[in-house]
């Protein structure tokens, strides 16, 4: 029987090894066969994506089957008391890689999700100009945080890889950093590799784990680095290389601050609370120096990038106002599992609700167990605080204006929730072998994970979109990317375009154009594309927005986008839309004197409309 080595902790409960951490037999145990199972599960998910792209039936069944093949063996093994520490850590790495690759096989050749195009644009701007701080027409705030774009440009220039390949590598490594660091942090707090590994699996149940935080976006890099900074700060307290660890943690703080606003704020908040708790409890060394550095860095950055305050302030004020409206009865509640035209199957809705119910049931048990364990540990208290935030933020999912905000807190809240629920799960199991209990725990963990997946991504977008699907496109297709590429060669970069929400992604990246981004542009695309005729309103909008070109996507007349909006989140009549746009609306530029029709690929036409801005009167 092999006894696991438990790392020393600088503070916390008595340093007795977890009696359930004993392993037996090989140090790697079942790691290799479970890795093989995970690989097979990934292959099944890839087949699901291929099937979805070809419009074959059964793709969603294959998707769930693949996920189960990945997660079930891991969950079953982690619940057991037999694995060694090495095996547990290995399993955490295996399911992290497997679940990340589930996102990669969505499309391994190019970026797919809208935020990825935002940061791709930032990266291309740096590569093209050699400098930072360009205006990003897809999300202006992104150019104020060049960390991800910077390291991606480094990888691209040193390796010759494409942006998507470099991005996949960077985010993949960041995911590994996230989960390994979480394991080490959980282990340090709980003195139990079993709790640590289960906590990581429960963290992976957060709705943003499978896709949102696996995409090429600044939070996907910043959050793992923030956790790494916390780990380095803890190391500073237990070794004689205090100065060395301090320097390393400062580099990490600088990286987080320059990469993502919310992660930087969260890290700073964590340091400050940690310092206060450490002083009040008289346990451990408060990270005062790191707190000071983080506060200075964030304050300086927010001064340098004033858009941050406007951006975050806008998000939170909208969420707050929306919540207030619902509470005071001035606004209706949001329908769960309904986004635009996307319809989630009933069984998935029930699974999502069951997952939430299980977490709410486990939470008080976990908090009670955790209280005894972590009461005098500052980071443990912070974890419990995060876990408590879960039920507090849950009602926001019923508020249209706030559900996005609630959703985006998941990856932070689950850091605490994962540890607390894992603590409850292991406490539920006794030292004696009790197979039924362990099976129950494994089943509950799998249900929680499954529920997280159902909430994670719109049902209609969970698999690769069918090629040339009838209806309004929710994702870029080959025709859109080739049209955008044509604009770069024929028209040059930086031209001002009005177009729909999906094609603007291609224009901004493949085409390096300047699609309209209201309100700073003076006009919105819907003001030009929604009206039925080329009238004074359209001409005025063209003039105000200095619009040179319009890209018309004819498929907008064949369906309603799953998100409900064609051109802009503020466009009128999007709520409750029943009928798609009329083809005549999209064809209104044909035959207008002075409007050149420059490009035609069937579903896409590009018009030069600059002359409209200087003409008077209607058509």
């Amino acid at each position, binding site marked *: 029987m092999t006894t696991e080595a438990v790392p020393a902790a600088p503070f916390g409960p008595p340093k007795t090894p977890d009696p359930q951490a004993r392993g037996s037999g090989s140090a790697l145990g079942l790691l290799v066969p479970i890795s093989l199972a995970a690989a097979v599960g990934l292959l099944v998910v890839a087949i699901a994506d291929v099937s979805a792209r070809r419009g074959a039936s059964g793709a969603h069944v294959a998707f769930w089957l693949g996920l189960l093949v990945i997660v079930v063996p891991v969950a079953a093994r982690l619940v057991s008391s037999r694995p060694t520490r090495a095996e547990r850590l290995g399993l955490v790495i295996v399911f992290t890689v497997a679940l990340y690759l589930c996102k990669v096989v969505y499309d391994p050749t190019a970026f797919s999700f809208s935020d990825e195009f935002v940061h791709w644009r930032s990266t291309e701007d740096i590569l093209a100009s050699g400098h930072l701080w360009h205006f990003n027409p897809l999300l202006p705030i992104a150019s104020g945080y060049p960390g991800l774009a910077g390291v991606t440009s480094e990888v691209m220039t040193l390796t010759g890889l494409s942006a998507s390949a470099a991005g996949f590598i960077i985010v993949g490594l960041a995911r590994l950093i996230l989960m390994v660091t979480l394991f080490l942090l959980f282990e340090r707090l709980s003195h139990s590799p079993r709790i640590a590994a289960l906590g990581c699996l429960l963290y992976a149940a957060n709705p943003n784990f499978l896709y949102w935080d696996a995409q090429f976006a600044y939070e996907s890099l910043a959050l793992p680095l923030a956790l790494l900074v916390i780990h380095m700060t803890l190391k500073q307290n237990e070794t004689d290389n205090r100065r060395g660890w301090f320097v390393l943690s400062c580099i990490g703080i600088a*990286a987080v601050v320059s990469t993502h606003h919310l992660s930087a704020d969260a890290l700073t908040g964590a340091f400050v609370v940690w310092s206060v708790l450490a002083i009040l409890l008289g346990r451990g060394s408060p990270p005062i120096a790191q707190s000071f550095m983080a506060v200075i860095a964030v304050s300086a950055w927010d001064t340098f990038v004033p858009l941050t305050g406007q951006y975050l302030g806008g998000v939170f004020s909208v969420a707050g106002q929306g919540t207030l409206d619902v509470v005071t009865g001035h606004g209706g509640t949001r329908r769960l599992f309904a986004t635009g035209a996307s319809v989630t199957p009933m069984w998935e809705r029930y699974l999502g609700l069951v997952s939430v119910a299980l977490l709410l049931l486990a939470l008080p048990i976990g908090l009670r167990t955790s209280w005894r364990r972590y009461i005098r540990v500052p980071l443990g208290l912070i974890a419990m605080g995060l876990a408590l935030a879960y039920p507090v933020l849950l009602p926001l999912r019923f508020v249209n204006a706030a559900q996005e905000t609630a959703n985006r807190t998941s990856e932070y809240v689950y850091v605490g929730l994962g540890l607390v629920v894992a603590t409850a799960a292991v406490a539920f199991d006794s030292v004696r072998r009790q197979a039924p209990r362990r099976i129950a725990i494994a089943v509950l963990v799998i249900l929680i994970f499954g529920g997280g997946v159902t909430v994670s991504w719109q049902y209609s977008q969970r698999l690769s979109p069918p090629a040339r699907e009838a209806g309004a496109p929710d994702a870029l297709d080959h025709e859109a990317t080739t049209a955008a590429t044509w604009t770069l060669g024929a028209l040059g970069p930086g031209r001002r375009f009005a177009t729909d929400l999906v094609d603007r992604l291609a224009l901004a990246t493949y085409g390096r154009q300047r699609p309209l981004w209201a309100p700073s542009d003076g006009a919105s695309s819907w003001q030009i594309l929604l009206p039925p005729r080329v009238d004074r309103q359209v001409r005025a909008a063209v003039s105000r927005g200095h619009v040179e070109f319009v890209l018309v996507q004819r498929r907008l007349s064949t369906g309603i986008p799953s998100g409900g909006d064609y051109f802009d989140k503020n466009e009128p009549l999007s709520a409750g839309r029943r009928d798609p746009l009329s083809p005549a609306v999209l064809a209104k530029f044909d035959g207008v004197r002075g409007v050149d029709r420059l490009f035609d690929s069937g579903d896409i036409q590009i018009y030069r409309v600059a002359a409209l801005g200087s003409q008077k009167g209607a058509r």
Partner: protein
Amino acid sequence: MRRLALPGDLVIVLLVAAVAVAIGLADVDAGPLRIVLGVPLALVLPGYALTEAAVSRRAVAGIERALLAVGLSLCLGATSVLLVNLLPYGVTRTSWLGVAGSVTVIASAVAARRRPPRAERPAKPRCFRPSRGRSMASIAGGALAAAVTVLAVVLAAHSANRDTGRGFTELAMVRASAGTSAHLSVTSQERGAERLTVTVTRAGVDLRAWALTLAPGEHWSRIVPIAESRARGPVEARVYRPGLATPYRTTVLWP
């Protein structure tokens, strides 16, 4: 006199960094070698060297060392872009080679100086070694898992490239030569070879016509004088498929 020896791991770090920087500066087409060396140069070596320079080896073991090597390399990339941006040349390949190479070299030098002499280094603990049979089985299983993983990604990539749906043809016409002519182009994104007829008219008057056969991915273009025509009105270019009266594609220019 005590012989100053560079520790083996730092020798490897410096060698890899040197070769990667040399290939980068020489701007040679090194193919996959550029990727194999460039990825460690960007994402591993600077962080590894920095970790070795800043903290004692005893404080960092195994997986933690790998974690810090990659994590700190990412941190350095995210932060050094701010400094590189201030350089006259800005963010270029030379700048990145300089940053990654310099950090690696300087940090390695500091790390080498910090390392205690070999005689004073603590003995490495004996690792548990599984039986030869178990090792072979694990290696084979791991290799099989890796192969299946690669298969999954390759399958998905192949489908993404191939299953792009129905083919299409692109017709484009833009002004050229200060508006006296038009640049006309047709690109085939169809699934098979297409026979097409391209016509250019102005106010119903035929200016030019061509019969083409385009293979998938083939591009055709011409410069069409438009100022010479006495007809007034927009210039229209159309693509027709054989046997169909309605245009397949249409572009219009208002001179």
